[in-house]
Every structure is written in C-alpha cells, then in structure tokens.
C-alpha cells in the first residue's frame, strides 16, 4: 500500500482520527492533565460545575473532570488489551483452521459455534460471577467471547487465500507452517482484519461499559466511564447533565472509531488488485 496523502482522507475519517488521538493522549498523560488524583475526595457530593471543580464532583465528592481523564486511561486501556488478546487468539486459531483444514478445522469451528450459541452478555455475567470480578478475569473472559467472532472472520478470509496457486506453490516448495501463515496468508488478509479490529474494539468497549454499569465490570474506586454513568445516574432526575458526560465520551469514541473503520473498509475494497 502506498502512503496516504492527507487530502484524500474524507472529513469524517479525519474527525475520527483527531478524536481518537485526543483520547489516547489524554489517557497516556492522565497524571499530568488531571487537576486532582483519581480517587481523591476533594469536596462535597454533587457540587455544581465551575470554580475549583470544572465539571463538579461526583456522588462521593471526587472531581468529575479528573475522573473522566483517568477513565479514558482505564476504559480505553482495558478495552484495547482485551481486543488485542481477542485478535491474537482468534486470528491464530482461524488461520490454523484454514491452513490445516480437516479435523483441526472441524474441532475448532464447532467449539466456536458452541461459544457463539450462548448470548455473550449472559455468558459473561455467568463467568464473572463464577471467577470473580478482577480486571484480569474481565479481560480474559471478554477476550475469549470476542475471539469467536475474530476466528470466524479470519478463517473465512484465509480460506479464500489458501486455495490460491501461490499457496500451493509454497506447499510444494516444502515451506513450514510459520512461513505459510506469516508471509503468504497474513499479508493478504490484513485489510479486513484491521477494519474488524476497529469494530471489535467498539463492541468490547461497550461490553465492558455495560458490565461496569451492571456492577460486574471495572470495580470501584477505579475510574471508568461505564460505572461513572451508573454512579451519577441519580443526578439526571434533577435536570443535571453530568452523568451524560461519560456516556458522551463512550459515544464519541465509538462513533469516531466507526468513521475511521468505514474509511479503511472503503480503501480495502478499492485496492483489491
């Protein structure tokens, strides 16, 4: 692929890139940006906007802005780790199934079918209540569930590549599995995988936020957008929009990622030769 000139990037994608970069930087430099510490109680509960606390305080009297900034780090970081893990496992298994075929393919595919058959939120809730709600457990369980979708996609796209003559040529040459997968197949299925990565990240992010909202995700006092909505939900009844801020962050990030992914999908389909 050739380098992309900034002019050819559509406005929506540009917007998405700017927002995502903004969030990532905020997360990275949260310590420097936040006026207060993540869990520090700085004032009264539910203080209004303005003054020392730009966006007021939450239900325990912690600074809302600082919590939002740290939330970017926690929510995005955990979602990113989960997505990366889901992709590593899913792509590896999917490629293995498509290259080896036969029994391996059957065993892996049926296992994944089984996992997919159970509604994932219910399954996640069940597993989390069995294994406890640590962050590690959360990452592992969500990754395991999202991996199934990645497996299906990578297996399907790799199948189209496996039947190519150049793959047969490589097999006839006597190359090992590693070369076959890394050098011959993976480069040819990167475009759909990258696009899927963006979409999956959104789903993982929403799943974690949903779990946090239900109280089984990221545990207090860690700042996290999902649980921040839940904790401050009461304010809505008083006409205060503060709880919508973390919800808005989730929405903004999700929309931005989708803008970028749409553009990538478009490019991938346009560069078919």
């Amino acid at each position, binding site marked *: 692929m050739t380098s992309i000139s900034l002019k050819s990037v559509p406005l929506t994608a540009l917007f998405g890139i700017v927002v995502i970069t903004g969030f990532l930087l905020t997360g990275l430099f949260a310590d420097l940006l936040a006026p207060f510490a993540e869990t520090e109680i700085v004032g009264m509960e539910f203080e209004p906007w303005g003054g020392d606390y730009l966006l007021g305080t939450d239900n325990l009297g912690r600074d809302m802005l600082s919590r939002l900034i740290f939330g970017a780090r926690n929510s995005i970081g955990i979602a990113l780790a989960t997505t990366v893990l889901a992709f590593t496992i899913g792509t590896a298994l999917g490629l293995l199934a498509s290259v080896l075929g036969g029994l391996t393919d059957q065993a892996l595919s049926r296992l994944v079918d089984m996992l997919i058959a159970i509604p994932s939120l219910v399954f996640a809730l069940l597993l989390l209540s069995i294994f406890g709600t640590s962050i590690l457990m959360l990452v592992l369980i969500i990754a395991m569930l999202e991996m199934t979708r990645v497996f299906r996609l990578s297996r399907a796209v790799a199948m189209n590549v496996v039947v*190519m*003559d*150049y793959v*047969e*040529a490589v*097999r*006839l*040459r*006597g*190359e090992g599995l590693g070369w076959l997968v890394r*050098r*011959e197949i993976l*480069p*040819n299925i990167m475009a759909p995988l990258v696009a899927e990565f963006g979409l999956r990240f959104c789903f993982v992010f929403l799943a974690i936020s949903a779990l946090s909202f239900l109280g089984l995700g990221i545990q207090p006092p860690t700042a996290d957008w999902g649980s921040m909505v839940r904790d401050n939900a009461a304010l809505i009844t008083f006409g205060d929009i503060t709880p919508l801020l973390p919800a808005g962050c989730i929405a903004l990030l999700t929309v931005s990622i989708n803008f970028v992914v749409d553009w990538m999908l478009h490019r991938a389909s346009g560069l078919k*030769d």
Partner: protein
Amino acid sequence: MSDTLLTIRDLRIEGRQGDIWQPIIKCVDLDLRRGEVLGLIGESGAGKSTLGLAAMGYSRDGTRISQGSVTFDGMDLLGMSERRRRGLRGKRIAYVAQSAAAYFNPAHRLIDQYAEAPTSIHRLIPRGQAEQEAREIYAQLRLPNPDEIGFRYPHQVSGGQLQRAMTAMAMSCKPDLIIFDEPTTALDVTTQIEVLGAIRDVVRELGTAAIYITHDLAVVAQMADRIKILLRGEEVEEQPTRDMLAAPKEEYSRSLWAVRSFTSEEKSAPASDEVPVIRVRNVTAEYVRGAPVLDDVSFDIHAGHTVAVVGESGSGKSTTARAITGLLPPVAGAIELDGAALPAQLAARSKDELRQVQMIYQSADTALNPKQTIREIIGRPIRFYLGLRGKAQEEKIRELLSAIELEPDQFIDRYPAALSGGQKQRIGIARALAAEPRFIICDEVTSALDQLVAEGILRLLKRLQEERGLAYMFITHDLATVKAIADYVVVMQKGRVVEQGPKGQMFSPPHHPYTKLLLSSVPEMDPDWLDTTIQDRKKG
C-alpha cells in the same frame, strides 16, 4: 426498411483510473447490415468487449461513452432514454457472454430463464408458446433431448450445453442483432466445434445479424462474413473474411497470422538405456475411494525433452500433475525421479527431491502473492533451496530476471499488480527456475494469454530448456501448443492414457479414434473448415 442495421460513428469510450479518464476506444466506426456476421478480433485489452457492449448502447461501470453515435435500425441508441433502451435489449439486441455458467441463475430451470424475456419482460407471447419455441430452438441448436432439457437446472447440464442454452435464450425474442462475446473460449475443442456449428446454422436460418468477438482467428474465420481487427482501442483493418485470410494488409494483422507457424523440431528419441528424469509407472489415483480419476497411467520424461499431456477437461491431466508433485498420493503405482522412487506423500519428500520438481501455473494472477515484490517471490526459493543470502541471493535474482528477458532494475521492486499477464507468467517461470530443478510441470501456462504473448512464453521455455537441459511436462488442451513445443505426446481420456508416442507419429495417421477426434476439432484458418469437418463427421 433499410439494409443497414447498425451504424457506429466516431465512437470514443473512456475508462476511469483513479481521477483520470483514459481512452479505451479511440474513434472506431462500424457498419453492420441485416443478417451479416462481423468478427471482432484483437488481444485482451484491445477493447473488443467494450465495443460489443457499446453496440447495445451500454457502457460498464467506470466507463463512459464520451463521443460518437450508435444508430440501431434508424434509432439513436445513445440519445434515447434508458427505459427505451431496456425495451430494445433482449428483444431486438441480445448478448451471449463468455461464461454461461456465471450468467445463468442457478436457482431457476433453463426454460424459465428462456421464457423470462419473451413473456414477463417484453410480453410478446404467452408462456405456452414460449416453451414450444424453446423446444424448437433447443432442437435447432442440437441440444440432446430438446423436449426435456429445458426443465433442468444449470448445474445439471454440461458447459457446452449451457453455452447453447444461452444462445437459445438470446434467440428467444427473435432479435435482429446478437453480440457473441467469446462464446466458445471456455470450452474444450471437441465441444467448441459443436457449439460453433450450431450457432452458425441458427444465425443463418433466422437471418440474425451478429457481432462475434473472439481472440481466436481460426474460430472467427468460420463464423464471420467480415473481420475487423482492433489494437489498443483502434481499428487496424477491416476486410471480408476470405480477403483478410488470404492477404492481410497491415503488419500487425500478419503478425497475428504468423503465431501459429511456430513449430520446433522433434528431438531424437533418447537412448533406450537412458534413465528418465521422471517415470510415471502404473499410477492409479482417486479422490473418492473406489472411483479412480487416474487409471494405470504410465509414461517417461527424459532430460531435455518435452512431454505434452493432452485431453479434454476432466481427462486427468492436472490430476497426473498432482500425483507427481505429491499433492494427491497415488493408491497404486509409483513416481520415479532419476530411477529412484519418490515418496508418495508430499510431506515425506526431502528438500532436494522437492527442489527437482517445480511447477508453473495456468493463471499467473493467482500464482503470485500480490503482497510480495518480485525480489521476494524469486528470492525465497533461492534462499530456501540453495541457502544463498544477501549479495549472492541478489545477484541470482538479477541473473534469473535477465534470463526471462525482464530488465532487473526495472522489475525487481515491483509488485505483481504492476505487471502484464505475460510478464507475470515470466515471473512464474523464474520462480520455478530459482530452485534449479531438473523437471518442470507447465500446467496450461499459455492458455490464459494472447497468442503473441503466448508465443513469446513458448519460445522462452524452449530456449531455457536448451540452455539448462530441463525436462518439461506440458499440460494443455491446445494442439497448436503441442505442435509448437512437444517432443512426445500423451493423449488422455477419462483418466486413462489412450495413446502415446513421439510427436511426428502422433500427428500423422493412423490415429486412435479419440486422438483423431481431438485433432480434427482444432479449428483451421480455412473458412470452409467447419463445413467440411461437420460433413465428414456426419458421413463417418
């Protein structure tokens, strides 16, 4: 009613590449009288299909008709509304595509698809009459069981039958003009002759005008009253068929004719005690237990010699290659390399055994990884088999590129997408040579290429063979290729070897009946060939 059916004047068509419109057709004129057949020939990319579609007032996505006029029976096709054009298509102008299998809807029976245009779309005749007419046209096109065949689904009939069913479909509204876009290119020679004969008779009987698009001169010689040659979107020349065949005026036309004259001297038979490079000994192979696709196949391939394996599709040519390479281990018999048995399973073969047997594929598009540069594609086998790295590897890559007549500096960093079809096929050859093999399987390597390009590839393979003493197994269905390059010929039918022998012997009588059928099915330049051959077969 005037005599002229179709007039195209000063037609220009452009195709979009990125943001730029590139010309595809540059200023072409065309005239067609009622009942006349015009042959359009040219290499791929010459704009034949684009011109054919433009005769229906249609331009594909990403192309536009920028200038000129198309007049059909006094009506301006380009100026009228899309709605009126649709009313003409199928009814008065019909189209027959190259790959009938891709154009039929697999979920509907042939007769339903036949009846769609005359009944539900153009509302010309009731369904019952359409079915009756379908049977008549099926019979005219010499389809077996014309009363019954329409009630089958597309996958239940053969490729040749499907192509005829599509022609029948084009005839369903008794159009004035049919565009045939390479209707027999995907068929075996033995099937092609039947389809050609059937199409021509029906076109003559109904007095339909036709534009017949093909890259095969011999085919167009049978079908067309006049021939128009296109090159890169421009007309080279146009003449009545017999004049064109007898005396082409332009240099380019003559070069098209010359291709078929490339032949090579048959090499003398190897000494009887010489050990062949590859010996296929009584090989039987099957995909499904108890249903052999190869049955007791035996032949030898000697160093410096070319063995052509010929037969129709499904005769077991490619399966033989799979058995030799180890992709399909035989259930009986053996493959010997230099007198020693090769392990049947691919996984059991040593690196050196793998190195000795290389393969060149039919479709260079799928044979080269689009995400690797030429340097990586050719460099990998050099490193893998010969252990060369760095400078030595680079030198070897450049040496191979020079050997296949591509300038190293210009090509080494390109991706396959930036190569033409012939260049890709050359890279495929270089990749096989990189292993320094003794034996190369060429699987229909020229059948996807234009004749001039194909001839270049054949000459290259011939030269490499002489320089390096390579043994080739040449899988092909094209007997012109066999004449050009083979020393020894193996004729296969239904998984068996029906006849084998040196080329000279195979091309002179007496023949095995199947060999005779194959030989007599190859179209010749003589415009009377089709009539004579069909006559002969009726007598015999």
